């Protein structure tokens, strides 16, 4: 009896004891997928790959108001609201990475995650073989190679050369790797772009519009090579670099012309601005159309590569919000500088200092039409028919003073990206705007710049059908500006100045100027660091009713030293490996 009990106990114990590994051999029931499920199915593959678009940087995003435009001479943003702004203006760019709203810094640097996604896709693509059409495979590969190039381009123009990863790093790989030079990285980007251009479609169907195209790949290549050829990065002024840049730009122009894929949005009709002067309300009429480059649904012919996901500024009307027109809920106004205002030529195609007809006391008439598209000046009315005129004069309602921080500091406000007749009173909702990375006009100017460096204003790249100056004039024609005045075509130096000027006004607030000044090696110069406004003192005897003069002191003096030409690597990465070097000066 007892024995039986013991036997039972022993047997049951033995039963319990057997198969111990099995007891632990359990894996979570999961909603997840394994590699096979993801990469052998076209839809899943695409879903995985699409995540690489998440780090595309939106220059017009709410939380990056005017950041890049306030890091150079385009204008001023008050720093109290954005911690990052003050840090950037004082030049402490390492600290900028760790501040709130440090998007230009941290968000762009975070794009490594998307590069990883692209690399995983390129690595896993063979798994899809047989489960997708060749066209689908090409699209996936093309997009991955393009986006890898794109993010490296974003790093290139900021921090410079990087280790060019072409496979995803594993959990135990050696991460200590040296940085490639600027030139090497640019060539890698160009190589990826070439491959992508062959793989990507010229145009996507309507369901996929906004994805990168052949033209986008060509544009990124052209820009990367232009940066590579520019003085800051091409210190020995190697003409071959310029040639490469010019060829890349021409390839795209040639492609655009031969296929009609891209063209400039032409002027259509006229626009008016009205302003109040001692003699009564005045009207300026100028060619319309320029603003429609920026407000479109779903596309226009000029856009080559953009952050397609449109930004509807909603109640904010524009990224560069004008406070007085949208009372309440406005936290940030952007103040264009006098420096930039002075770059807009007169209607005669002359710099203001070169045009005898220009009256410094009546400076806002007879200017380049793009001036009216880009800048709001004192006493201008720009609302939906209300009788409100901007008070940007000293002491005016819309002029920054005292505690009223969110108004203009310079005497100007930004108009670009602002839909017509959209304001607090009209009730109209803001139009969609897009962050445009490349448009056709930019490419023309890129070609012109490179061609001029090779052979001067009238140089035509072998095989091309357009000279440098012709390319610039095409851009000017669109806004009905006369061609570049012959007085500026004496040599490549004089023409270079006009190209720089043309880029400044054509691409104003489009996130280009900061990087242009930087690649030209101009950014540290005082004229680009000291931002002035305009003093407007009431004087009914003057044509505008005000004495107009540049402010005696700069509104802000930006810090830009030699080290700022290459952005710092965040400390956490810069301090990790001896092989991976910090940029000089940081």
């Amino acid at each position, binding site marked *: *009896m*007892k024995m039986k*009990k*013991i036997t039972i*106990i022993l047997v049951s*114990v033995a039963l*319990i*004891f057997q198969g*111990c*590994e099995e*007891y*632990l*051999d359990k894996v979570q029931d999961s*909603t*997840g997928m394994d*590699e096979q499920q*993801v990469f052998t199915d076209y839809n899943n593959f*695409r*879903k*995985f790959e*699409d*995540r690489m678009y*998440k780090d595309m940087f939106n220059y017009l995003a709410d939380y990056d108001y005017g950041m890049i435009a306030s890091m150079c001479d385009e204008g001023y943003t008050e720093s109290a609201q954005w911690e990052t702004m*003050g*840090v950037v203006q004082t030049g*402490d760019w390492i*600290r900028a990475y*760790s501040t709130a709203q440090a998007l230009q810094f941290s968000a762009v640097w975070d794009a*490594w995650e998307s*590069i*990883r*996604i692209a*690399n*995983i896709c390129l690595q896993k693509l063979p798994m899809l073989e047989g489960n997708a059409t060749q066209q689908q495979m090409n699209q996936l590969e093309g997009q991955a190679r393009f986006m890898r190039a794109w993010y490296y381009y974003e790093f290139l123009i900021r921090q410079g050369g*990087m280790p060019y990863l072409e496979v*995803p*790093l*594993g*959990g135990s790989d050696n*991460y200590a*790797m040296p940085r490639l030079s600027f030139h090497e990285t640019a060539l890698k980007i160009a190589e990826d772009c070439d491959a992508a251009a062959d793989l990507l479609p010229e145009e*996507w169907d*309507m*369901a*996929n*519009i*906004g994805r990168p195209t052949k033209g986008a790949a060509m544009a990124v290549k052209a820009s990367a090579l232009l940066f590579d050829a520019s003085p800051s990065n091409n210190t020995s002024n190697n003409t071959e670099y310029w040639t490469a840049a010019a060829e890349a730009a021409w390839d795209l122009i040639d492609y655009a012309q031969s296929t009609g894929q891209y063209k400039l949005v032409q002027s259509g009709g006229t626009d008016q601005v009205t302003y109040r002067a001692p003699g009564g309300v005045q009207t300026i009429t100028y060619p319309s159309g320029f603003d429609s480059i920026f407000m479109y649904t*779903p*596309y226009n012919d000029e856009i080559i590569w953009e952050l*397609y*996901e449109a930004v509807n500024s909603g109640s904010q009307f524009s990224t560069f919000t004008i406070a007085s027109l949208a009372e309440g809920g406005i936290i940030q106004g952007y103040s264009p500088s006098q420096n930039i205002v002075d770059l807009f030529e007169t209607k005669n195609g002359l710099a203001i200092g070169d045009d005898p007809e220009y009256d410094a006391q009546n400076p806002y008439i007879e200017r380049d039409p793009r001036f009216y598209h880009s800048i709001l000046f004192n006493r201008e009315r720009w609302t939906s028919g209300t009788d409100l005129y901007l008070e940007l004069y000293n002491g005016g309602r819309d002029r920054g003073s005292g505690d009223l921080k969110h108004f203009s500091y310079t005497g100007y406000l930004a108009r670009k990206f602002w839909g017509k007749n959209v304001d607090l009173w009209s009730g109209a909702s803001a139009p969609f705007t897009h962050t445009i990375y490349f448009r056709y006009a930019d490419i023309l100017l890129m070609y012109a710049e490179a061609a001029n460096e090779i052979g001067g204003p009238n140089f035509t790249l072998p095989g091309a059908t357009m000279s440098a100056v012709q390319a610039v004039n095409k851009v000017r024609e669109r806004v009905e500006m006369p061609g570049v005045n012959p007085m500026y075509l004496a040599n490549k130096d004089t023409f270079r100045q006009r190209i720089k000027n043309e880029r400044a006004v054509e691409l104003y607030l489009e996130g280009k100027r900061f990087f242009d000044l930087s690649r030209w090696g101009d950014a540290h110069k005082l004229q680009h660091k000291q931002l002035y406004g305009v003093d407007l003192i009431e004087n009914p005897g003057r044509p505008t009713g005000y004495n107009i003069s540049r402010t005696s002191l700069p509104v802000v003096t930006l810090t830009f030293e030699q080290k700022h030409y290459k952005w710092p690597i965040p*400390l*956490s*990465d*810069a*301090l*990790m*490996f*001896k092989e*991976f070097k910090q940029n000089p000066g940081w």
Partner: protein
Amino acid sequence: MKPDFITKMRLHAWMCLFILLPLTVAGQQKTITGKVVDEFGETLPGVTVVVDGTTRGVSTDIDGNYSISASPGEVLVFSSVGMNTQKITVGAEAVINVTLSETTAEIESVVVVGYGVQKKETVVGAVSQISGERLKDVKMGGAIENSLQGVLPGMVVLMQDATPGEESKSITMQIRAGASMGNNSPLILVDGVERSFTNLDPEEISSISILKDASATAVYGVKGANGVVIVNTKRGSEGALQLDFTAETSLKMATRLPEYMNSYETMLLRNEAYKNDGKWSSLISDEALEHYRTGDSPYLYPDFDWMDFYFKPAFDQNYNINARGGNAFVKYFVSIGYLNESDIFDVGSIFPYKFEKKDASYWHNRYTFRNNLDFNLTKSTKLTVNLAGNIKVWNKPVDDYTQEQWYEAVTALPYYPQEALEQFPDDYIPYDQDGIRYFENPQQGEVRLMWIGGMGFRRNKSNGVATDVNLEQKLDFITEGLSASVFYSFNNNNEYMKEYPLDYLFGYYLNPADSTWSRYTNWQVLDPDTPQPKLITSRNETLQSAGRSTYYKGQIDYARSFGRHNVTGVGVFSRRQYRGIFNFPSYEENWVARGTYNYNEKYLFEASVAYTGSEKFAPGLRFGAFPSFAVGWVGSEENFWKDKLSWFNYFKTRFSWGMVGSDAGIGRWLYISEYTNSSATQGFGYPMTWYPSIQEGTIPVTDATWETAVKSNLGFEMGFLQNRVTLNVDLYDEHRKDILQARRSVPSWVGVASISGNSGETKAHGVEVELGYNHSFSRDFTLQLRGILSANESRVVSYDEPDAKPENVSVEGKPVGVAQRMGYYTPASAIQDAGFYQSFDELFIWPLASGPKPIVGDFKYIDYNGDGVVNDLDRIVPRNPYVPVFTWGANLAAIYKNLTLRVDFYGIGSTTYAMRQGGMFYLYPFTQNKDNAMTAQANHWTPENRDAEWPAVHSMATDQYNYLGNEFSIVDGRYTRLKNVALSYKLEGDRLQKVGIRQMDLTLTGTNLATWTPFKLGGDPEGFNSGVDFGAYPMMKRFTLEVRMTF
């Protein structure tokens, strides 16, 4: 064979029947009589006298006399609760008189170790133990863990937040150095099963042991490396019913509160701050200041002490009734407890919704129940059944984010006159958060007041059930000393929460321009007659957490003596499954073997091995073997020792070495990488389509495994002067490897947030000293003194830190606790300062940090790396970790007749704490909705007070040069505390007997009576992070009156 067994069985059965009867088996036995007295000659009734190895036993009568039958050569064992057991071998004599000495509370004859108990003399591992009686002396409200502070050498307990009902959520327990950068929590076992002891009533606890070295913990394999806490509950004993009733009530209040300036002083300081910042237009006029000073316009220029208003003493209550007793068949221990904790914030009286205790105050009710039964089914079969449970209900305000109540109550205090508030028909005292606008906007001078608890409240409930069944069979018929047991345990815990919010914030608004009041919400200003918002009572109760564990175990024990050779062996197989309701269950499996051998309890040997597995790791890496070895020598048992060293009565030395593992805090499925659906990213197409996306999982760590600790321990146990003085010293060393952590050298270009690896390595060592003195000077007067001291040091050997990281910001070579903190939001490193800028010239000499510019009187920061600027590269890591390097406790007990006085001190040393967000909430006046200043801040830098403690004042915390995560915000956390003073009086005698009370104890206890700390701002230094800078419910000081009756 078979008949033999049956015969034996029957014999056992017969023996069971006769167990209560005095055995008078004939033979060579004779009757032995005698008297048992104590050291002072007093007779001892109720002493158990048993013939060793038999079931023959008697008790002494009221006069201490006994009579028992025994043969010469047999051993009589005299034992009684509280007395040292004595053994006497029967010789020729017929009368044996015995004197028993009292045991001291600290010296237990039996020590609880893993999977069993060992005689104290034969323990070779490092184990400390305290009795449940001792635990009850310290009154800690709902936080029983905190009662362990300063009583167990080698254990640190830190409490951060005393929120009633949730105390244990903020408690950190650590045994020895805390050698892991990951999780250092010890394994906690209650009656052998992994579960929490937070909700045990102190009356239920028999003893708490902590196992510290590898010899003691290796049997827990992959869970043992952080040490083990074993809590055993009380069990019944054979005898008449003993009923204990305890009633306790505590008056409680915050230990230390910050002190604030009055409104005039505040306004003066505020003006100074605004002047320093050049905000001239924001100054308060001299006229207004004069009003503040004189108090002639208390509505507009008020002065009101909110601290005084908000904090009130509160009462806690605690009741327990328990019964124990039993007979030969069954022994029982039954306990029922009730705990009620109330609130020291005066919230309830101002919260308008007073129905069914539905107010926004903090309170906690807990009911505990336990029934421990032992059945002797047969002579050799024992069935143990434990059934225990608790039900808790507690309440707190909705806006409890890091104890916002407390923060708001003490930071945004805008001195407001109570009379003004009394105008309100509702009779509620409104409470401010954004407060008095004349701080921000003097022209408008509006006052906004908001209720504390103005967002409603939360009702939490939890229940826990624990059921254990153990069947133990003696297998002496196979071989003597063998037994086997099967154990099953089921545990279930659920926590629920129901919210009763207000749909919006609600308060009052005063427009001083016309002195009219209106109500306001967080959205808008309302008419004063607007009805109060309704309390939303329709929310569903939600399950907050749930845990269910099952555990089963088979165990074989062997214990036998062969002459002077004593051998024991334990073999265990166990499995545990734990399931949180929202999680996939986790599994573990253990195979354990331990053997001990000693020769005459003089030369001691022990070896154990655990083969344990955890499902957290990849197949093939799940099981590991953890061996340990230990030796001991009881020198005082040697004859030469006994001959020569009469003053040195006890000496034992022991040494252990072993390997233990820890999978605590290590995530599961690290070896698997899976892809999951992710949110849509970029939109494409017209009309816009947001394409769904799939996300890569973390990079798999296919070789992830547990941490391994190699530990060694050298211990000495000594007794001097008839063991009146005892000294125990333990020295230990630990080398922990394969600490799983997020790798620190994963650069951005890998493109993943983090990669884990078993790359951490640390070393630790330490010492524990326990010095005791215990002497009864007479029958009436006994003195017990005990001091314990633990010191631990740990260093990070490897942290996978990048090579290029400068020494001053790297943690390798620094204490583990410092490494653990690196990377939290709270700055764990700091910039050093060299005092304050004393002159204008210095402003140009010292390297600057970017951001706001300093003024004279601000901190001068040290450019540690000499690169000309002060930035993150100049940071240094703090010297000491948060969990103190050094803890000590001193316990004194003086017993005079029926009066007992106990005094306990506790202290911690060498600890630093980084304040929340660089001390923003605490160190700087006028910051983050904090419109007041502390009294201590009067000692700030001014040209007249250059040797100040605080820098010059500014109007904003984060916008000033001083706020840079500097040393100033890393504070010295050491303190010394008069933890407990208890005076108790024992009543007994005929009068009480007549009403059925055997004994009655009256005790008055003061807890946390005084604290000494270098930190000057006020607030309690314990749990520094959240306690002192308003993140948590304050620590309590208590006065407790306890009545205890034994029937």
